[in-house]
């Protein structure tokens, strides 16, 4: 199959993720969308890897998954912490770092 299809799917997944990150207000959903973006990138990596007949891209995809798992751990932990302190679960409300 032509590599273009894989890349198209990857781009679509990435864009859906990016759009979600930019528009959604629930941090949980923002995290989910982030994962989508990462997986879009992973898909592209694996597709290129296959095209060149080279394992490097797949290894990198595995590393990205590990990093994503770590990120989710921290992200979820933070959401739980926010919830425990009875703060709003809304990224627009959590804007104390404004200049």
């Amino acid at each position, binding site marked *: 199959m032509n590599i273009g299809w894989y890349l198209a799917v990857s781009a679509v997944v990435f864009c859906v993720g*990016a759009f979600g*990150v*930019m*528009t*959604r*207000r629930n941090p949980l959903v*923002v995290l989910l969308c982030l994962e989508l973006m990462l997986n879009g990138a992973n898909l592209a990596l694996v597709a290129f890897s296959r095209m060149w007949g080279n394992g490097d891209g797949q290894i990198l995809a595995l590393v990205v998954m590990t990093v994503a798992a770590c990120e989710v751990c921290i992200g979820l932990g933070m959401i739980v912490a926010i919830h425990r302190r009875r703060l709003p679960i809304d*990224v*627009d409300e*959590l*804007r*104390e*770092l*404004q*200049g």
Partner: protein
Amino acid sequence: MSTTTYGWLVLAFPLLGTIVIGAGYKTFSSPAHARAAGWIGTAAIGLAFLAALGCVFSLQSHAPHDRQLVSSLWNYASTAGVDARMSILVDPLSVFMILVVTGISTTIHLYSVSYMDADRGFARYFAYLNFFVFSMLLLVLAGNFLLLIVGWAFVGAASYLLISFWYRRSTATKAGIKAFVINVIGDIGLVLGTFFLFKHTGTLDFLKAFAAAPHVFSEGEGDVVAGCLLLLVGAFAKSAQIPLHTWLPDAMEGPTPVSALIHAATMVTAGVYLIARMHPFFELAPAAQDVGAIVGAVTLLVAATIALTQTDIKRVIAYSTMSQIGYMIMGVSVGAYAAGLFHLMTHAFFKALLFMSAGSIIGAMGGEQSLQKMKGFKRAMPFTFACFVIGGLALSGIPPFSGFFSKDEILLVVGERGGWHWALYVVGYLGAFLTAIYTFRMIFRAFYGDPTEPARELEGGHLYHAPEPTNPANGEVEDTDVGFPGPTHAIAERHMPMRIAMSILAVGAVGAGLIQIPNVDYGIEKFLEPSFYGSTLYTVHTRDGLLVFGLILGTLLGLGGIAVAWRIWVVGAGRPATAMQERFKPLYTLFVNKWYFDELIDVAIVRPTAMMGRFATGTFERVFVDGAIVGGANAVVRACSASVRAAQTGLLRYYAALLVLGVSALGLYFLLQT
């Protein structure tokens, strides 16, 4: 052993003494071992003296033209164009100096063992004193300009440490700081002068520089004159010549043996040594020589007039030292090298002796130094009296004591130069007359008349101690618990080491002049000649009527001065002095206030500097540094951050959007590039 090995040994012993005493400070602080520090220090200098003797004898075995020996241990700094090595120059001039320094130092260490006995800082004292001797020997043995500067600065530091040795006395610490600051001015002069000479000769090594001097400089050339004038600044500061002399009288705050060693016999003569050592340059710079001669003459006269009116016994001797060094500086500046150095040697003997005798009287007075309170010690202290009179006669230039030969020798050469030097000749003899007056003023005031309380007690066999120990300079009550200075005092009549030291110096003060008797032997002149082979001024002078005239005039003036002092202080019991003070009141005020040099320096230098300092902190720093530089930078940063602060909304989604946009823009850019 070779000659230079002896030279290295001379340096090694005092350094070793310093290290041993300094490292064993804890051990020597305990009363059981306290004396050991003194004996180690004395032994170290004694051994150095023996090595110096070895130097002399092995040097004399060389042919006269081979008597300038250089030895280097290692490279000190060897970079492009600089050839500084750790090297010493052993020649008759440096050997002469190390003999004087180690010889006098040995007796003074011996004296100190008793004099400082009760002082808690005993070990510290000897470590410093050994360090001083090492520095001084380094100064005179240095084979290049770099080591000379190192020795020069070390000597200043040692002087500072010893002047403020009794650091619980506020007057002593102030005097130490003053001495150090003025000495550093001299150091700067020496360093800058060295640069001027190095620029043309291209070498730091003495012998190479001296050999190159006549080829690279023409006589009276600007750079050599400037270099020599700057060297003179160094010499004046170290040797307490006007206007850099004010530290010397204040340096009398140090223990008396320190005054004897550093501020009379050795360190303050470093300027004389410097001029004699640098004679190949000075002879190319007649203007600098004239400046040296005139300043020396002015100093000798001014110091003598001040000495006439001072009442602190140590300060009188200090001004006398200044005055005598004025003779030496004048001598070596007009080319009387041998005579100047000869006077340096005889002066070391009799001035150290005078200081030691003064120390003995101060001990008997319970630390009091004012001549106004001393009277009638003649019967109570016969030994001290004899030593003081011998020193006084030598200082006044009465034959056959040593000062008689050396002072007249200088003035003879000054007279032989002719022209305006006759003025210096007259000033020199006027100074000689005043010298005799102030010297015997001291003797007659301290030893004659009705015995005072301390003298009577001493006649009865009891050493007087003040009911409450006070600082003689300002009357502050002293802290004797920590030994500042020792709670008990020492006098020569009771302590053998002091007597031995003073006896040796007394023999020197009487007999040292015999080394060089005109028309009989020219011991010093012949010995030093190999160091001055290139000199145009160093000649064995033809003796004529001027010599006999000078000797007779010197004797008459000395005896006349003593007679005047006798008339005023013994026959008139001081009343004529009071009458004269009334009659010549302005002159007396001028002399007793030391010609207002301290005030002059205060107004001319200290206050403008302090004012500049206040301007710098008050105005410059507050307005310019704090206001413009610091405040300006602050304002710029604030303004910039205010402008970008709007971008920091804190909205996560906004940041994400920016990120995506940015990355997209970058991607687009690269896509378009390709």
